[in-house]
């Protein structure tokens, strides 16, 4: 006796969250059944293995049919074939587009191209995430990227509107899209200590202040591309380190203000010029695409690592950076105050987030 056909169709589509997770994680039906058995479901429910197998198959088939709709979530809302309560629809979408930290760290900042897709086997082997799941996550990134890349308006809002994500997930995807578009390097060894959250935080600050959208809300790609004009202008900041007097004045002002407040005052004083040079040079180099990509590498090399080697506590870093950027306003010879603020406000936020072990 073999089962030729075995289906269950409910007027309201049944979604088993547990099986959905296994499916999203890319397990085959037999693996999923084995995992469910291991989770003790047979004992809890008194079901037989055959029942479990049939149930799992059924859910997998349903998910497979839903997958097409999940590629364009508004379709899931408007389609008539599967009657699913709104809360469940949201859950389906949210889980489908959720990604693994380990995976996103591997592809963050990479071009979402066929080439990268070919590397997915390696990523799968490295992270222990099934290839199927890697593919899904990669395709999700790419799909969202394609849909929003040419759009006007806020990146996160666009994503949310077209994919019906929660705020949190929409912001994460905005970061992923932003990183993929600007190809920021995140894979270098010295950046390994950074989490996706760290990068996403920086991305959000950069989107808010450094993109075209920050100054003009009526352009295409407003949130995706950095404001080229702004990056060009950043060269003007060079005077802060090139002009010896200005640099000395800046240093003395900062030191005066922080004396007695900083645990690592002497180290700061000794390193001030190096740090300042580092931060200003990062700005000046951003005209070149290559250097834009290396932004995070540079920040870690030029600022995070020197401070960390001197064991600056986070509080001291914060005090220093605040003082460092505020004091520039008192430098009479410096004319690019607004530019400085636009650069430094974001950078300060990023650096503070990046500064940890």
């Amino acid at each position, binding site marked *: *006796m*073999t*089962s*030729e*056909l*075995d*289906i*269950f*169709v*409910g*007027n*309201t*589509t*049944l979604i088993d*969250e547990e099986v959905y997770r296994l499916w999203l994680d890319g397990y085959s039906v037999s693996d999923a059944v084995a995992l469910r058995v291991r989770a003790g479901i047979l004992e809890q*429910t*008194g*079901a*037989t293995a*055959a*029942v*479990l197998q*049939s*149930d799992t*198959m*059924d859910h997998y*088939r349903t998910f*497979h*049919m839903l997958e097409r709709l999940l590629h364009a979530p508004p*379709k899931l*809302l*408007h*389609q*008539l*074939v599967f*009657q699913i*309560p*709104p*809360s*469940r*629809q*949201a*859950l389906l979408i*949210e889980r489908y587009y959720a990604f693994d930290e380990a995976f996103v760290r591997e592809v963050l900042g990479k071009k979402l191209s066929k080439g990268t897709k070919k590397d997915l086997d390696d990523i799968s082997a490295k992270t222990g995430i099934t290839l199927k799941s890697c593919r899904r996550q990669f395709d999700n990134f790419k799909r969202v990227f394609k849909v929003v890349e040419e*759009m*006007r*308006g*806020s990146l*996160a*809002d666009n994503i*949310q*509107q077209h994919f*019906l*994500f*929660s*705020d949190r997930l929409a912001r994460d995807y905005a970061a992923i899209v932003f990183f993929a578009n600007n190809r920021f390097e995140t894979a270098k060894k010295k950046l390994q200590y950074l989490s996706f959250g760290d990068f996403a935080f920086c991305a959000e600050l950069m989107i808010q202040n450094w993109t075209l*959208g920050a100054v003009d*809300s*009526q352009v295409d790609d*407003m949130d995706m591309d950095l404001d080229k004009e702004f990056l060009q202008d950043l060269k003007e900041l060079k005077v802060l380190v090139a002009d010896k007097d200005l640099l000395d004045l800046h240093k003395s002002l900062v030191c005066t203000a922080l004396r007695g407040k900083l645990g690592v005052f002497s180290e700061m004083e000794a390193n001030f010029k190096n740090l300042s040079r580092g931060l200003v040079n990062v700005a000046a180099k951003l005209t070149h695409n290559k250097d834009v990509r290396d932004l995070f590498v540079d920040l870690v090399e030029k600022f995070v690592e020197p401070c960390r080697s001197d064991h600056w506590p986070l509080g001291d870093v914060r005090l220093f950076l605040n003082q460092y950027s505020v004091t520039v306003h008192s430098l009479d010879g410096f004319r690019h105050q607004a530019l400085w603020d636009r650069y430094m406000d974001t950078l300060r936020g990023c650096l503070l987030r990046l500064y940890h072990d």
Partner: protein
Amino acid sequence: MPGKLKVKIVAGRHLPVMDRASDLTDAFVEVKFGNTTFKTDVYLKSLNPQWNSEWFKFEVDDEDLQDEPLQITVLDHDTYSANDAIGKVYIDIDPLLYSEAATVISGWFPIYDTIHGIRGEINVVVKVDLFNDLNRFRQSSCGVKFFCTTSIPKCYRAVIIHGFVEELVVNEDPEYQWIDRIRTPRASNEARQRLISLMSGELQRKIGLKVLEMRGNAVVGYLQCFDLEGESGLVVRAIGTACTLDKLSSPAAFLPACNSPSKEMKELPFNEDPNPNTHSSGPSTPLKNQTYSFSPSKSYSRQSSSSDTDLSLTPKTGMGSGSAGKEGGPFKALLRQQTQSALEQREFPFFTLTAFPPGFLVHVGGVVSARSVKLLDRIHNPDEPETRDAWWAEIRQEIKSHAKALGCHAVVGYSESTSICEEVCILSASGTAAVLNPRFLQDGTVEGCLEQRIEENLPAGCGFCHIPYDELNMPFPAHLTYCYNCRKQKVPDVLFTTIDLPTDATVVGKGCLIQARLCRLKKKAQAEANATAISNLLPFMEYEVHTQLMNKLKLKGMNALFGLRIQITVGENMLMGLASATAVYLAALPMPGGIQIAGKTPSDGSYEQHISHMQKKISDTIAKNKELYEINPPEISEEIIGSPIPEPKQRSRLLRSQSESSDEVTELDLSHGKKDAFVLEIDDTDAMEDVHSLLTDVPPPSGFYSCNTEIMPGINNWTSEIQMFTSVRVIRLSSLNLTNQALNKNFNDLCENLLKSLYFKLRSMIPCCLCHVNFTVSLPEDELIQVTVTAVAITFDKNQALQTTKTHIEKSLQRASTDNEELLQFPLELCSDSLPSHPFPPAKEHLESARSNSGIPAAQRDRCSSWIELIKLKAQTIRRGSIKTTVTVEKASPMGEGNFRNRSAPPCANSTVGVVKMTPLSFIPGAKITKYLGIINMFFIRETTSLREEGGVSGFLHAFIAEVFAMVRAHVAALGGNAVVSYIMKQCVFMENPNKNQAQCLINVSGDAVIFVRESELEVISTQQPTANCQQSCAGGEVTT
């Protein structure tokens, strides 16, 4: 009444890409009704075309309006080659033809293609203007309402129940026409879909005419079926119960307009029946048949009143015409006389109803069934309905005679079915013989009386159990006792019926689903030989099915079956029997004895031991079941009951017969001779197997109950969460070990595993009950068995359930201890508080309950649902490139969330899809049906030539059934409804050819489209706004739940 049909094509969405080059589609729409066709403009290069057409107007006869479906075809315009069809929508405009139903059909319909399935949606508006033209000779029956529901629909009142209507139409099956060799599968499928749609329309119109002739205005319990006979044709047949219904206008009408019993009796006298077809019968009499004392001496000849019906098929049991039996008493006799005459004017006193207005059902005799084997290739004139009409008439005649033998003049819960394999066809009919109250059957009944419970004089909850037949001349041997409830009338020891449990019946504990399953191998044979072989097997199958049922019933410790449905399916090399019923313990019937096992050869010691071991197991099972189903009937001492009636012989309510083409009648004595009823004799291994299989049926996991009736006896606190589902399984038998035993085991496992799977799948709904579990077996090929199950899972409140049962038991205990005087009042009391006016507690917070069952924490779900709504709201306000809002809408405050959820859906059609509930039941728990919008009767064919690519047979059928559900929901939503009740999947014919990578499936579904309002909302509405607005508000409210 000719009319003007107006159609407007608004828009399409999610269309498939038809032009690979541009990834777009140039769509236009053809609107066809009868022979007239209109076209919209081509909407270039869009997958979401906005046609916004003018109103296309068709001026048509109402005959056409009833027969023809509106046919909407979406096509892709192609300049150089033929236009490609995207898909079609058939819209049945019947609901627009009677005033109380829908006034407009408007909404998104899935565009369906028989090869590709659903391909996008189209928004259509349909209206009908009818002109009154009463002078014409009526060929149409516009205005007659149709209901699939097998009880009086909730917002109506039955003025008269006229009786049986049937009709049958035949046509050549397009799939078997010569042209099918040259046309595409799509064209063939569409021809078939269209033909069946036309035939259904015609059938419905013809039945409507019959109803008008009977002066009725509605058909209740309408059941339409297709017989795919193959070469000899395609038959569409329908049966139903003609009624005159009155719409209940206000809630006040639900209350019985109480007249005093005496007045009622005075007003009862028979009014001249205005129906010219019937001749009047004697004067009517008060119906106080409960007040007389038992007087067996009065004799009464049945023949005196049973008149002209020619019963050529008299049963052999000696109860036929001429045998003068002793009757219960003069009143009973008069009652019988009166109803009988009222009924006998009808050709067939049959009723397709399974639940009845209070007082309608007086006594129940038992199940009557008849089967007949026919050869389809012997039909003289296959294109004409005469032969089939004659076949069915013959079977109905037989049923009628069986009922008569049981002392009954009517058959209720009546249904008909067929099973076809090649040229052999088994026709089956079954029902429950009953004695009815004549008041509902005639014109001129008193206003207001009908709602009144007639059994004010009858002890509630046991009257229907009392035997209608003559106890000294019983149609079959039965064990009679005095009713355990009133102790005045005789009752049988077990009762089998095809109807739902009467609402006033007193039940102890809970009920459960019982199934008897059986396979019999049969040699492959041709024509006559085949038919003979089948006819020979049928009696044995019936016998065994019956034995299984009886044993399982005893094993459950129960004494009655409701909703009994025995399906016999014929295949190439086997016959399958599947009987399903809901077992209950009726308080009025005696407690069932246990089951005793007796060995043939008691000499052997080890054998003896084995037997006693089995015996113990069985006794344990019975005890366990009694506990499980809470069966603890009050103990009644023998003295109260009175001495047993002479000759305590065996039981069996089943009276049935088989007839072959030759009209030969075989009457089965199912009483197992003189043996004691409950002794299972183990004389060979077969019998051993039987006993084993008896014990292998596992009860549902705790928290689950199941039944095949409308509601579960003993559970009355349903919560509002329902889940209707269809599950299909096909197994392939290994041809090596095809013995009857192996076959039985396979089939048993198939059904048991299927049930287990259902329990597992629905475990999140616990505590819940599977109601209206409907199994259908078919044998699509030699070694394939297909089982299709449709049912609804309803959650209930466990705590409350316990309470109610407790009081229930207390009550019955109380009852048992009271003496006869008080008995008269008790039923009344019982009716007033435990009975049907409020079968459910007012829906408590359905939102809450729905949420709590979903597995994720409520808070999280709240969040989830609120985003989507938030996003939707945003989508309406935010335009692309508007000011940058750095997501200021942080998690909405609880207040805000509440607002979003309570907001009814925005009026624009494309915001969200409204929820449409589907249920095989006639009601929706915790809700009130406010309007019936019309019958849904849909037929779909789906075919594929890329079976593997569509996920194999399971993927193919899963998608198809989901699509069928979607199309039903869309039609209901377009009618303005939010639910389908009495939903039934009447056919699911699945054929595959894996070698050719092909499969085909035909599905036929029906139900009643309704608007329901949650009871909780109803209160709000009634206090705040006139009910006219409830349609919008409830539809809207549903969306957000």
